[in-house]
Structure formats: C-alpha cells, structure tokens
C-alpha cells in the first residue's frame, strides 16, 4: 500500500497568504535558492479561501506537493460533505498533491464556517477512535486518495487513552497512513508526564508516511506549564528525539516537513540541513 508512494524527501509547509505577510518564507523563492534542501511543499488550505498566489506559483512550477486541509472535522463522521470534497479535490488536483492530510480533530465549532481554526484534538477514548476511523476511511474511499490523519496539538488532552494508542487504533481500523507530528507528540508527552518516546514502540510505525517537525516554546500561564506550538525556528529537544527515532524505525516514511513558514530564511537553513542529513530524498 505504501511501498509505491514516492519518497518526497524534506519539505516545507505554507499557509494561506503566508508569503505576503512580510517575514514569512516564500516557498518558491526558497526552493529556487536551496534546491538541494527543499524537495516539496505541503499546502495548508481550506475551501473558503482556496489557493493563494504562492501556492499557485508552486503548482505552476510542477514541483511535488501534498495537501493539508484546515477545515474538516475528522473527529465527526458526518462532517464530510460533497461540496467540501469537490472543492478540496480540485485544489489537490491542481497542486498534483500526492496525498491528503490534516490535523485529525476539530477545526470548526458547530457546522463548517470560515475562520474558526479551532485545531482541537479528539476526546481520547475508544468510541472517538472508532468514529474517526470511519471518517478517515470514508474520506479515503470517496476521494480515491491516501489520507493521513495527523495528531493535533493542545494545551490539554481529555480522555483516558495515550495519543499514540488512539491514533494507532484509527489508522489500523481505517487502513490509512499516518502523519506523525513530532512537535505535537512532544507536547502531549510533556502534558501527561511521559518521556518523549513513550508508546512509540507499540505504534504501527509502518503506517507513518509523513513526519512534521516544528519549533515550540515552553510557557507558563498562571503557574500552569504548557508548550505552545509556535512554528518558530527551533524545535524542542524532545521533538528532535522523537523525529530521529521515528525516521530510523518508520519503514514507509516518505516525507519530512519542517513547519517553519513564519520565520526568516537564515533562521531555518541549519535545520533544513540537519533534516536532509537525517532523511535524504
């Protein structure tokens, strides 16, 4: 199932209008400047806004891409509708996206509406995993694409299961791949008081097709310690530890994304070099 997928190498992420915001990275310019370091683009988009000019330029160049949705509640089996699917596949086709992926939880409150960007993980319990597996399976079937659910970040997780136990159940039942976000997993492990690698050995690692790496900052709110998923330049040590272990053990890993779209190029070059040394295309 995964063996036939192309090995994309190290990629960069982008969000709508991320380039024109000034300090954000222009993925097209960066690919032209560093062709040996950046091999594909992960486009973060939603149907309300579509593809911005940077994303369209990347698509026109014909370089490899993946599509990361920002507007589907995979935690709700009935959130998928025909209008969303048609619009999403149009964008994915235009990009030549190799697969669909996205944080698997809740993006919107209530019905789908623009601008919520909730990014909430599911309740970590068995019935929620079963429902998400149905949603992932249905999306794979109706889209005809491989779908990679991603473990979302949070300041707090609710439910008795370990995050990796939850998503292991999801991808096995849905027969899908997995996008393992190492930074988000590091957030969870700290929140629950686990070591960075806890639970990984029992996860179906052969299903991990893509890994995300991103910077984070340890913060305190009224004495409550938490990790903000800032997408700043420097990943936490925990994130590096998870990334290196997963790259070594995930036999079907095809893509490694450095989510660093808000930073200046000189701040991220060394980490692109480190990631390429870890996972050459």
């Amino acid at each position, binding site marked *: 199932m995964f063996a036939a997928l192309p090995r994309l190498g190290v990629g960069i992420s982008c969000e709508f209008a991320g380039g024109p915001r000034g300090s954000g990275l222009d993925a097209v310019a960066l690919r032209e400047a560093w062709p040996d370091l950046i091999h594909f683009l992960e486009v973060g988009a939603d149907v309300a806004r579509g593809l911005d000019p940077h994303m369209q330029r990347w698509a026109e160049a014909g370089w490899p891409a993946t599509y990361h949705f920002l507007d589907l509640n995979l*935690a709700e089996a009935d959130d998928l509708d025909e209008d969303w699917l048609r619009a999403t596949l149009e964008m994915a086709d235009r990009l030549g996206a190799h697969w669909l992926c996205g944080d698997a939880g809740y993006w919107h409150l209530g019905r789908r*509406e*623009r601008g*919520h960007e909730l990014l909430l993980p599911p309740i970590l*319990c068995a*019935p929620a995993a079963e429902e998400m597996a149905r949603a992932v399976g249905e999306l794979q079937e109706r889209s005809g694409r491989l779908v990679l659910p991603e473990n979302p970040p949070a300041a707090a997780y*609710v439910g008795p299961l370990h995050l990796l136990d939850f998503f292991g159940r999801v991808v096995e039942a849905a027969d899908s791949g997995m996008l393992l976000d190492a930074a988000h997993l590091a957030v969870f492990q700290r929140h629950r008081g686990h070591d960075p690698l806890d639970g990984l050995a029992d996860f179906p690692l052969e299903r991990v097709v893509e890994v995300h790496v991103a910077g984070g900052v340890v913060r305190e709110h009224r004495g409550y310690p938490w990790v903000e998923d800032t997408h700043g330049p420097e990943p936490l040590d925990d994130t590096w530890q998870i990334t290196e272990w997963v790259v070594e053990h995930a036999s079907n890993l095809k893509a490694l994304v450095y989510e660093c779209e808000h930073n200046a190029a000189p701040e991220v070059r060394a980490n692109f070099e480190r990631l390429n040394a870890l996972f050459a295309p």
Partner: protein
Amino acid sequence: MSHQALARVVMRLLHDPQADVSAADLSAEERAWLSEVDPRAWSVDHERPARVLKGLVDELPASVAIATARASYPAVLAFFRSTWFHAEVDHRGSLIEGFAEHLRELGADPGVLGIELAQARARRPSSGRGLCCAPGVAAVTVDGSALENLNRIERLLFELSLFPAMALSRERPGLPELAPPAGTLHLVVTPEGLRQLGRVVCEVLQRLPTDNLAGVVTELGLPSHVAESLEADLLRHGLAVIR
C-alpha cells in the same frame, strides 16, 4: 455519541473558561476525564475568542460597527459568554446565527443585520431536501432604509480601512446618523449581487426548503394552484433547485 458532547463542552470552555457546564449531558466517567484537566489549561490561549470573532466580524461588519458604537467592544466580545454561543456549539449549529442574535440584543440595526445575515446564509450550503434555495441565494425582507444605512456604514468602514490608526485619534469619525424607517424592501442575495424582487418570491424563498410549496403559498394568502407556476419560475431563474 457522548464523546461528541464532551468535545463540545471542551470547545465551550476554551472560549469561555468560566462557563458552567454542569448541565452538559455527560456520563460520570466523562466528567471524571474532564475533571482531570487543570482548569488553567482552558485559558492559555487568551486570543482564541478574538480570532473566532474576526471571522464572524468579517461577515457582519456593518452590524458589528453599529453594535460596537451603541454598546461596546467588550459587549460584542461577550458573545462567547452568551447563551447564543453555548447553544450553537451544543447543538452543532451555526455560530453566525448565534452571533447575529447577540448583535441584535446589543442594538444592531435590524435592516442592516438582515441583509448581512442573508449574505452570510447565501455563502453556506443548504442542507435541506425538496425545493431549496439555489447555491448562493438567500432572501430577506427589511425596512426600506436598510440598504441606505448599510451604504452609510460601509462608507465609514472603508474610510477607517484606509487609515486604521484614525480610530485612535480624538477626531475619529463616529457612527453616521441612520436613515429613518421607510416602507419595506424585498431583497434576494444572488451570486451576481443583491436584487429587489416581488414580495411573494422573496417570502417563498425565505420559507425554503419545503416539499409542500402549495402549503407555503396558501400561508401567504394565495391559491394553491399558483405553486406550480411559481416553482417553475424559481427554477428557471436559478433562484431555487430541487434536491
């Protein structure tokens, strides 16, 4: 689907950390899971409500301007502590509908709000069956002054957008005087823009979806046999579709 009820409680707490969620339909086990979370976790991202508000404001900008001027910015932001917000999340409804009710309570002009809400509804897919408004279509009946008032507020917002720092100056422009009530407007939002149509068409569109158009026209005081030709007209002009 109890885990969905728990997820909605979490959503409510993230936007209103002091919310009383004791009435939520949760099992004892789910309440225990919730109680294991440090309550301070709900408020770590204090900008979260303002980010959601941004999306809502984008859809009802003139109504928000009037409500802010007549009440206050904190009063607008208090949407997340209102029963409207909690009810829409609880019932998996539409935040824009609840936000519109909140603005109505704060003194938003009903005509301006009616037009902006119809435009917001037209952007959303219809979930009904039978005869439905076509994609991009919604109708509203408002006071005859509503369009003029919407124009006045949009002009103010445009001026502010040219130089946002103006809002910090002592000479910042205030809310313009609104036009007095003047008759009734029957408006239909279409993908091509706002159109003024007849009362019957407008009121029928507001009652869709339906699988009993004859009953709808009877409610409006017309003979039921009108339904057949009316349906044909709505379909021919692209104002309605059958699902």
